[in-house]
């Protein structure tokens, strides 16, 4: 079985995010970028399937600026077999919207015919949580989202999902889309020999035009602002005062 893993280049989770002065978005110039952490979990899961003999090839795909090839090299160093980069933007500040990404991924999937797509549940830059679901709809495939467990049983994938009330286990027929959550696994560190081998693994470069997909943004960013700074707390004298404040000032009771 072939497993396809989409990976996104995002601002590193350790970086303190700054909003651009003109409010059009987050400042990404000379900022450390890394693989979206949920995508790392997806890559790790694909590698584990391969190690268990349930997958035989792992293809990583990234859509974005040319620099996303570094992200793909990371996936290759972890253990993916080959990579496809679709260069869809020149400007590092241009985000490709979920629907365009889903359409491009569908086009790649039509060519590659994977048995399973493992994707991060969302990217930590804009937290849309949409691409996996849109892709499932475009393909007409089954989907298992927010996966914290995954077992392959013959033609089916058994997915444990983290839902509000606890854990839900579903069985989906493959080919399927599974979007992964934080607790599915702990991604490995790439070994030095694998980092070196990754240099020589195939990385194909494509453009949206190769697939006939229009990636023009449909959404307009109205404003981007820093979150309001946290205010200092206050001390209350009694439980009654606390309840009164929660009722009247905070309005939460």
């Amino acid at each position: 079985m072939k497993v396809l893993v989409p990976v996104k280049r995002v601002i590193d989770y350790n970086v303190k995010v700054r909003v651009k002065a003109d409010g059009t978005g987050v400042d990404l110039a000379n900022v450390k970028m890394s693989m979206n952490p949920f995508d790392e979990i997806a890559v790790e899961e694909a590698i584990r399937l391969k190690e268990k003999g349930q997958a035989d090839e792992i293809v990583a795909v990234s859509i974005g600026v040319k620099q996303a090839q570094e992200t793909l090299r990371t996936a290759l160093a972890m253990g993916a077999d080959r990579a496809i980069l679709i260069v869809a933007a020149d400007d590092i500040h241009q985000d490709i919207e979920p629907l365009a990404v889903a359409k491009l991924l569908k086009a790649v999937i039509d060519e590659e015919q994977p048995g399973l797509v493992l994707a991060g549940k969302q990217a930590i830059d804009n937290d849309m949580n949409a691409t996996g679901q849109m892709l499932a709809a475009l393909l007409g495939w089954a989907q298992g989202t927010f996966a914290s467990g995954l077992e392959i049983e013959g033609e089916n994938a058994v997915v444990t999902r983290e839902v509000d009330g606890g854990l839900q286990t579903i069985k989906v027929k493959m080919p399927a889309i599974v979007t992964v959550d934080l607790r599915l696994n702990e991604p490995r560190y790439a070994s030095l020999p694998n980092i070196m081998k990754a240099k020589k693994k195939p990385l194909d470069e494509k453009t949206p035009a190769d697939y006939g997909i229009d990636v023009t943004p449909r959404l307009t960013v109205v404003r981007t602002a820093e979150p309001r700074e946290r205010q200092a707390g206050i001390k209350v004298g009694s439980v009654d005062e606390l309840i009164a404040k929660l009722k009247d000032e905070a309005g939460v009771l």
Partner: protein
Amino acid sequence: MPSYIPPTEEIQFLLHDVLEASAADIPGYDELDRDFTAAVLDEAGKIAAEVLAPLNATGDAEGCRLENGVVRTPEGYRDAYRQVSEGGWIGLDADPAYGGQGMPYLLNTAVGEMFVSANMAFNMYWGLTHGAMSAIHVHGSEAQKALYLPKMISGEWSGTMNLTEPQCGTDLGLIKTRAEPQGDGTYRITGTKIWISAGEHDLTENIIHLVLAKIPGGPEGTKGISLFIVPKFLPDADGNPGPRNALHCVGLEHKMGIHANATCVMSYEGATGFLVGEEHKGMRAMFTMMNEARLGVGLQGYAQGVVAYQNALAWARDRLQGRAVGAPANPQGPADPIMVHPDVRRNLMHQKSFVEGARAFTFWGAQLIDRSHRGGDAEAEALISLLTPVIKGFLTDKGFETTVLAQQTLGGTGFTRAAGLEQFVRDARITMIYEGTNGIQSLDLVGRKLPQDGGKAMRAFFEIVKGVIRENEDDAEVKAGFLDPLKAASKDLQAATMYFVEQGMKNPANALAGSYDFMHLFGHVCLGLMWARIAKAARAGLNAGTGDAARHAARLATGRYYMARQLPATALHLARITSGADTVMALPDESF
């Protein structure tokens, strides 16, 4: 608890913009393109920050335990060691013929800095394996290489160096450990060795001791010393560890720092040993490792400074005390962060300008080692031989000083265990002592390295300084901020060198009494030279619009501080040197 942030951006800048690694005409350097080194440094940085750094304070508190002859390393060290060895990091620059990755020593040095900053005591377990591997690789037989190197490169086995004995350390001619030929090509090793780092531990299935010993009937002094491989478990021909050899760890030292690294007293009780190279040629084999090992210790010195500085800076940004001169910097808060105060700022700039210059100097040294080992360049070999005692002595003295300055930044908090700064001070302290005390380094520099080949290497160094000045003189800003101070400092170094040339023959005491100051004078000029090279690269980046402009500006500002406020120390050192030995030697012994 202190934290560690891998300085991968600064390392990348040095590798590619200052040292221009991938363009350097050194075998293997063509592999070092920017994306590749970024991938390696990112992954190594993650392991340093996420796996090794969290074990630094806990390992220090717990220390090692000796139980029935077995040393237990602190909680978590076995698992961390497994991650590092399985990741292939131990063999980064080792020979691919034995399973290494064959990368340049420069890259090993860059990765090594991060591991050492994160956890120096842990890193030493396999840092010493590296030295032992080099000795076997250069001087061992084909059979020895095939038997030992693959297991050491993979990290399954570790290595040690056994030189010191209770009665001697610096003067190895006095060693007593005996090696008696058994008639079957092996030797019986008997004696006691002390201060053996990683002499015994629970991280690997076997430990390969390299032991200096004397074969009875051989020449007196250092000319009668031979080098032996003495494994903890005697391996069979296939490399499976077999019977336990007659050697034991009989004690652990209680030390000021590096608590998580086992410093062992080793007793050899007729242990089976295998000769490395020729009989009585052990010192030569030892010297092979010296340059690398001493560069590695210089790195440890400034690397502790790096992590100490990072934590001092974090404190200086957060700690609110007093108000800035003029307008407050944090009018909404009860006070301003202490980094607004000029004296706190001076303290931080002192730390920052040292560690960044030291990193550049060490990387340049590593590049010279590659040029010599990989490229067979004799000039590079002579130059690194000259610079090695400077890297070791100057960078560890100043690295230790940096940890103390960082501790000072935190005031009383820096004195507490919980803040973690005092551990960096304690751990850095050993770097000034081991692998030859810094006093010995200065004697090696002035007595041996400086006069070698009629001072040829020193003249080559001055030519390099002149070259950097000549190439950049058109840039008025670089000239004023960097080249003019470098020229003045270099003149002080020339004057000191001339003084030694004049005094060396007629009054050697004058040279020996000035050797320590000479090492520092030389060190400052080296860092001044590196800052001039950094300034050149930062200016080029700004002009071309490549890289982060704010970072380039910061490099220039940091460098200007070094040139204005640290480099002038050369005049002081010169004055001390030319005052001669009289004031040093005047007091009669009994009057002390």
